[in-house]
């Protein structure tokens, strides 16, 4: 893992990533090859780690790409990259209100205190950006001369004005504001940041009047296309689609009212009509939201585009205030790339810094010599917690070793840095907590309750026998199926399942609740994870019929078919306080036909589920037949979108193991034989 972390930060990795981007041979490569790649560029690394000088140098070297016929101009020079020594704070959403509502001139005026190092750093950033814009305007001017028709010319002239106005004016229209967001967002990607979200766009665009609804949708769709342009480049290494470009919509305000506006609808409508997996949407839901908005979201979800993910303010905001965020800030939460809540514009929090592999402690437990000496379920739990402590201690130690890369760009966008006189890498932000994910939580609950019932209550198995079965990695398929059937607990709304969840969470709190990082920030955790596949590969067989190397349980989902109400009841019965709010997603599969033919009832189900109290919810709107057919004939299903851990992706582009897992889960949800 450590070697991987070092490699990921090295120029070699960026070179490899860019190379892969150019040389894509996958099924949708044609789509990306058409997106005007700069194939002739040499790979250039910019050294001078983390300083503003590095940022200045970078902006001077970027090859600017202006395209004819585009509403928005955006580019990433994929051949140019930062060299850095430490880890960048990323997986975050800058508050772009700063650059929409203020001109560069005004922003410079806010950074005049020469005694404040961060003011000076911000000023240098702004000066470098001003110089960069001069180059951009020159490029646009020369491109305007080659425009083939009057409309193209007019568009480029308009874009020229937008860039020029950045010096002295705040944005005046939706189009201008979105162009600014694209410009600054691309600078984050250009400086090596990954998984960069877009923030609360409906809120920050609120002041721009909508005169023509259809035209506004078209503008937003063009904005989506611009964000999507460098999709393979922006995607993480594990799977295409993991870009983290998330747009947050709606949400409860501090006074308890629900904020939404016409843009909330239009961002959803635009995605519904223009199905692409990236960017993705998250809708903050509440019992105070209008039914029409929830219906609008459901119609979008029903298209199979994979979003919006629903985040329940009734549960999330109190969990955040209990943790220590100010109420006003908690009400202004966004999420990291997928689902981890944090405060918008005031945080330098890395929310998926590590993952707690709960299942690893199960394997440690049954491999221990003490396992066979356990006389009852309490002994088993004690042994499990001893093994979990090893996992937790290892994780906490690794957190203390982290060093952050100086980051002038994110520092400029983050409140608290000027007041504290510190860069985000030095703990300058208002909030500096860390967040960790959770893997194999479901496998753990299933394994423990299997022992409780099948060994100690029913006497179907002995500890010796189940240990032997697991160490042999379920050599007999029939035995594996039997244990899988007997250990199907997670997701059921039964008291003993909740109690087991509660005891594990309490143990984590007792062990990690005291943690303070070097900035004084605390640790938060959740039971969702993006690592169920990767960590599954390194985890031996668990006591729930899962073989060594197989994927771990996905988020909050059942290992067998469950009524949706039961799954939501289960998720709503989990306590998310005590730092346990770092992403807890209910994840289930539902067919489009089912939603369409029961729309009103399904909508009611969502409304009542919000009241019931789920934390977050996402749906894969597919069926097993579609997925099997798409795997068999990928060329016929190039545009089939699925939801992976916290992002949407084209099914045919996913690694085979992810395809297989989705097919298996769809078959289970349809109560069909998975073979």
């Amino acid at each position: 893992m450590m070697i991987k972390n070092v490699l990921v930060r090295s120029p070699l990795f960026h070179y490899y990533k860019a190379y892969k981007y150019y040389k894509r041979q996958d099924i949708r490569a044609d789509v990306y090859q058409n997106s005007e790649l700069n194939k002739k560029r040499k790979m250039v690394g910019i050294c001078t780690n983390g300083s503003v000088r590095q940022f200045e140098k970078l902006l001077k070297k970027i090859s600017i790409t202006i395209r004819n016929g585009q509403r928005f101009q955006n580019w990433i020079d994929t051949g140019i990259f930062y060299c850095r020594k430490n880890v960048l704070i990323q997986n975050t959403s800058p508050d772009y209100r700063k650059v929409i509502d203020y001109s560069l001139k005004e922003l410079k005026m806010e950074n005049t205190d020469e005694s404040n190092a961060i003011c000076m750093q911000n000023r240098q950033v702004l000066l470098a950006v001003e110089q960069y814009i001069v180059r951009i305007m020159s490029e646009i001017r020369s491109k305007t001369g080659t425009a083939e028709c009057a409309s193209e010319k007019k568009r480029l002239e308009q874009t020229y004005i937008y860039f020029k106005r950045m010096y002295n004016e705040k944005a005046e229209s939706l189009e201008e504001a979105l162009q600014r967001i694209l410009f600054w967002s691309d600078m984050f990607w250009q400086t090596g940041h990954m998984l960069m979200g877009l923030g609360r766009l409906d809120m920050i665009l609120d002041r721009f009047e909508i005169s023509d609804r259809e035209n506004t949708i078209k503008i937003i769709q063009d904005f989506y296309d611009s964000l999507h342009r460098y999709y393979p480049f922006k995607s993480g290494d594990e799977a295409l689609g993991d870009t983290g470009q998330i747009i947050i919509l709606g949400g409860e305000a501090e006074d308890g009212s629900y904020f939404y506006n016409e843009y909330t609808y239009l961002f959803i409508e635009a995605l519904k009509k223009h199905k692409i997996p990236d960017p993705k949407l998250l809708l903050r839901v509440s019992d105070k939201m209008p039914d029409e908005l929830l219906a609008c979201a459901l119609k979008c979800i029903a298209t199979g585009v994979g979003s919006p993910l629903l985040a329940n303010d009734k549960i999330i905001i109190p969990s955040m205030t209990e943790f220590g965020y100010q109420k006003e800030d908690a009400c202004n939460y966004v999420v990291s790339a997928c689902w981890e809540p944090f405060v918008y514009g005031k945080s330098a929090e890395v929310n998926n810094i590590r993952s707690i592999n709960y299942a690893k402690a199960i394997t440690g437990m049954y491999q221990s010599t003490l396992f066979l000496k356990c006389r009852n379920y309490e002994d088993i739990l004690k042994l499990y917690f001893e093994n979990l402590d090893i996992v937790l201690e290892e994780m906490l130690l690794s957190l203390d070793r982290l060093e952050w890369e100086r980051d002038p760009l994110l520092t400029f966008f983050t409140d608290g840095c000027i007041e504290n006189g510190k860069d985000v890498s030095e703990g300058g932000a208002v909030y500096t907590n860390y967040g960790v994910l959770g893997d194999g939580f479901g496998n753990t609950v299933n394994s423990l309750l299997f022992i409780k019932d099948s060994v100690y209550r029913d006497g179907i198995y002995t500890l010796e026998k189940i240990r032997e079965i697991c160490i042999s990695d379920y050599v007999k398929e029939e035995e594996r199926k039997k244990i899988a059937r007997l250990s199907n607990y997670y997701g059921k709304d039964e008291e003993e399942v909740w109690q087991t969840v509660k005891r594990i969470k309490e143990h984590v709190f007792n062990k990690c609740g005291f943690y303070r990082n070097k900035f004084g920030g605390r640790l938060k955790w959740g039971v969702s994870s993006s690592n169920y596949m990767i960590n599954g590969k390194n985890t031996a067989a668990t006591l729930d019929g899962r073989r060594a190397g197989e994927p771990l349980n996905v988020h909050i989902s059942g290992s067998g078919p469950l009524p949706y109400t039961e799954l939501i009841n289960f998720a709503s019965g989990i306590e998310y306080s005590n730092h346990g709010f770092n992403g807890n997603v209910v994840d289930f599969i539902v067919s489009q036909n089912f939603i369409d033919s029961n729309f009103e009832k399904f909508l009611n189900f969502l409304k009542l589920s919000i009241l019931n109290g789920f934390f977050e919810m996402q749906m894969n709107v597919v069926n097993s037949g579609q997925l099997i057919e798409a795997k068999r004939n990928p060329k016929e299903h190039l545009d089939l979108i699925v939801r992976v851990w916290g992002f949407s992706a084209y099914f045919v582009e996913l690694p085979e193991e992810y395809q297989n897992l989705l097919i298996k889960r769809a078959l289970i949800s349809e109560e069909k034989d998975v073979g």
Partner: protein
Amino acid sequence: MERKGKILITNIQRFSLHDGPGIRTTVFLKGCSLRCPWCSNPENLDCNIQPYIENGVEKFYGRYYTCEELYQEIMKDRKYYRGNIKEYCIRNEENIADLPGGITFSGGESLLQIEALVPLCEKLKEEHIHMTSETCLFVPQSSLELAICYMDFFYADLKILNVKQCQEIIGGSLELYLSNLNLLLHSGKPVVIRIPVIGGFTDTRDNMERAIQLICEYANDEKVNLLKIELIKEHNLGISKYQSLAMCNAGYKTPEYKGVSDEVIELYKEKIAEKIKEKIPVDVCKI
């Protein structure tokens, strides 16, 4: 096992959206008074626990529940039994969507175990939980009267309306059916009539005409609270259950469905609508 006062159930289906208003929990009661050759729930015919084989493993259809056990199970989704109105005795089909979810007793024939269900129904009624019954109406009148006391909504089947065929094909007394239908429709409780359209059995011209005539009579009766007519197209989703039961020699004949065309169903629907002058909505339901 002590069975007195217990209820024999084959399945409790949560998040059920097709068995009544709102989000429901459907309780499938074991045992039926008829033997319809097209039945898609053969596991609910016999009123005893029955073995069957699934994937080579012997399992059993049916489990006895006390009212309390059943109450605990069906109330797990009580948070989802919410609607827009508190008065359940609606008189308009459009108001069905406003009714809350709740519990649906299905089967088999749900009313065969109504006496055992009374303590549960009392409790549910106290808590204002909406209750629906799906019934073929081939039950003693006393059972129906009891059900009318507790149920808020009924789905009543309309199958074969020829005395002889009714007896020979499905094993029921048409006289009893008609008497119970009359009782139910005049009870004031909201009723939806469900007509299974089955090739070779209920789709004959004669049977369709009799059905239309019967519906017409009630459609014109203002005292009757008939909300809707639903035509259910035949399907073969129960075949695998016949096969699983056959492995344990249950003795049921697996249905040979002749099929019903969409045109026949649509024509049937139009005829009913025309005759009743669209006083009551008619829908086609495909499962």
